[in-house]
């Protein structure tokens, strides 16, 4: 009996360990390789910062920099636009009758559930049929259209949690509708808006298929994801500087996450003290 339960405990504990190892080993491996300046995954060249130096000195450095800038620019413009569109759309959807709200919510989820390749092809056909200008216009419109539903998905729950009389209370106290939305509704749903923005930004940076199919062949626009794809094709294997680039990204993201969580952790105890007073 006793042995059985310890065995069970061991399984329970090892499960999380296995999951974490599977998740983090590849990332860790990549960071390790970034210090060995290799594209053949061997340690023969010894440890160095060469890969990091190449980021700025290799013949591809300017293209890489341009791709990086494009990625950030597209992500920034499309996520800000999607956040504004999505937030106001959510407030509108929230104000609808229960039945039409259900319908619109389901329609909104369609692009999220749908496979990305379908959307990519559909967007491509749409842009070609209606002769949208090549390049940034198509990319931005495409990114905005697939980011907006995520913002709606992240803002809606905040609105649903809100006391249903809040908006009416603001009107009752003399606020006109726009004022009530700006100074009451938006501050309350702000956490949802921010996480929607973060999500939109990330999926825009991540996106490959939609960008690849809609960037057009003549415009020459590359983002990080499309550039790594084409450079792997043309140069026969990944150049070492890619490992360096991604290692930097990981460190930045993890650092930002830690910072946010630490700040939140510091805030909580003070709040508790206030409650117990």
């Amino acid at each position, binding site marked *: 009996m006793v042995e059985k339960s310890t065995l069970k405990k061991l399984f329970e504990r090892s499960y999380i360990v296995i999951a974490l190892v599977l998740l983090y080993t590849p990332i860790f491996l990549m960071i390790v390789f970034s210090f060995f300046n290799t594209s053949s995954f061997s340690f023969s060249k010894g440890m160095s910062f060469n890969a990091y130096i190449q980021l700025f000195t290799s013949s591809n450095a300017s293209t890489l920099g341009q791709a990086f800038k494009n990625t950030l620019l597209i992500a920034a413009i499309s996520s800000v636009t999607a956040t504004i569109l999505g937030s106001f759309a959510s407030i509108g959807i929230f104000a609808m009758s229960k039945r039409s709200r259900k319908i619109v919510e389901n329609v909104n989820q369609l692009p999220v559930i749908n496979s990305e390749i379908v959307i990519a092809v559909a967007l491509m056909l749409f842009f070609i049929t209606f002769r949208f200008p090549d390049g940034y216009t198509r990319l931005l419109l495409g990114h905005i259209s697939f980011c907006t539903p995520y913002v709606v998905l992240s803002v809606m729950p905040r609105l649903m949690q809100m*006391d249903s*009389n*809040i908006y009416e*209370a603001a009107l*009752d106290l*003399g*606020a*006109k509708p726009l004022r009530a939305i700006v100074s009451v509704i938006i501050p309350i749903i*702000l956490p949802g808006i921010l996480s929607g923005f973060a999500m939109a930004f990330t999926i825009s940076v991540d996106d490959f298929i939609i960008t690849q199919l809609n960037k057009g062949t003549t415009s020459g626009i590359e983002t990080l994801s499309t550039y790594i794809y084409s450079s792997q094709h043309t140069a026969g294997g990944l150049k070492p500087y890619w490992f360096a680039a991604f290692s930097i990204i990981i460190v930045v993201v993890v650092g930002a996450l830690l910072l946010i969580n630490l700040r939140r952790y510091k805030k909580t105890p003070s709040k508790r003290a206030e409650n117990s007073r």
Partner: protein
Amino acid sequence: MTTDKIIELKNVSKSYDEKPVVSSVSLTIKKGEFVTFLGPSGCGKTTTLRMIAGFEKPTSGTIYISGKDMTTSPPYDRNVNTVFQNYALFPHLNVYNNIAFGLKLKSIPDGTFFVDKNGNKFENLRKLTKDEIAAKVKTALKMVDLEEYEKRNVSSLSGGQKQRVAIARSLVNEPDVLLLDEPLGALDLKMRKDMQIELMNMHKKLGITFLYVTHDQEEALTMSDTIVVMKDGIIQQIGTPQKVYDEPANAFVADFIGESNIFSGIMVTDFNVKFCDHSFECVDKGFKYNEPIDVIVRPEDVSILSSDDARAALLATISSCVFKGDHFQITAIIAGGEDYEMLIHDNVNCRPGDKVGLYIKPSDLHIMHKARIINEIVTEMWDTNTVEICGGKFPCQCDLPSGTKVKVSVDFDDVIIYDDENDGIIGGEIVNTIYKGNYYQCVVRTDTYYDFFADTEDEWLKGDRVGISVAPDKILITKLEETI
């Protein structure tokens, strides 16, 4: 128009998707009054309040506030403020900013004037200064006993404190009328009692008109100057608490407010009423001779005497006696009748099985017209021997041809109610059940909004779906003459 009237409703109705929620409500509220809308949930009291606040537009009718037609004005143009049941405080603002919210939006005349091209004189408006706002918020906080709480986050407050902030947030705007939508519903009993007294004190001190919505009859009786009893979107009675309690307008009001015995009876002549198979002297007159009526007797108006007392009007056997703190709650079966049950509150301790005499003062017998004595529906024959009632085809014994206009009458005790909706010819929802001594009178609302009255042995739960049918020989059909 007298300035005395602060709110006036004229034939105000509201329906959602054709379903009436408030039907032709008319009333006037005087300045400084404490008025309570009382009724069971779904009676339209909150909807009426929301129409006065401006959150809902009436389907028809007019709402006057301070003598001005405000029927379609938005909430921010009305000088009324609402306290919501679940407080609706702004979670992102602290106590101070919650209360200051309305003040920061307010504009007041600044004493200077300007004259436009056409010679019209206008008084200039200005915003309140920071100091003015701070002073007003401080006074409001003091009024609700929360002086130390200015900087507190509203999520850190208890339910009672949140309610006080909500009240302060509304009162600080100095509204003409304060609307309170079941404001104490979420508080525990003790807190509720304290807040009742505090609200009454505030009302006295400020002189602002309070319009209060509740389903708690005790709360209404304690706090109000005037009670408006509502049911199914219709006002049943408007009166002082004392009047509503002592002279209920109908069986519903009597049943809803306080406990009561309700019996069906007959007004034999003036000053003589017969119910529970006994005759009684009463103080009412002006009814038709032998008119069927409802008699209402409050439990505390029945006195228990010894069975050989000369004053005893009724003999009864005690069936139960429960101690309730300040009185005994006694049920007694009246002798010499069909086992009518009487509920009594008295401070005599008795044991089940005791034989006692009962006495009721003539002035404590409240006699009222019956809402209805038979179910009557104007409809058409579906076919020979079939009549349409509320969308269902009822078999009957009548050889009039299809399409003939007829009046159908069904006695209350001929309506058969089934547990399963599908067992009846038509379905309906129980909207009311009143115990009448030895049977229950239920009201079943069909899907075509006709109310069937039915006398049954069993108690049916309000809100349940049931089936209705009537035996063919119990449907009385009279042909209606075609009128041009």
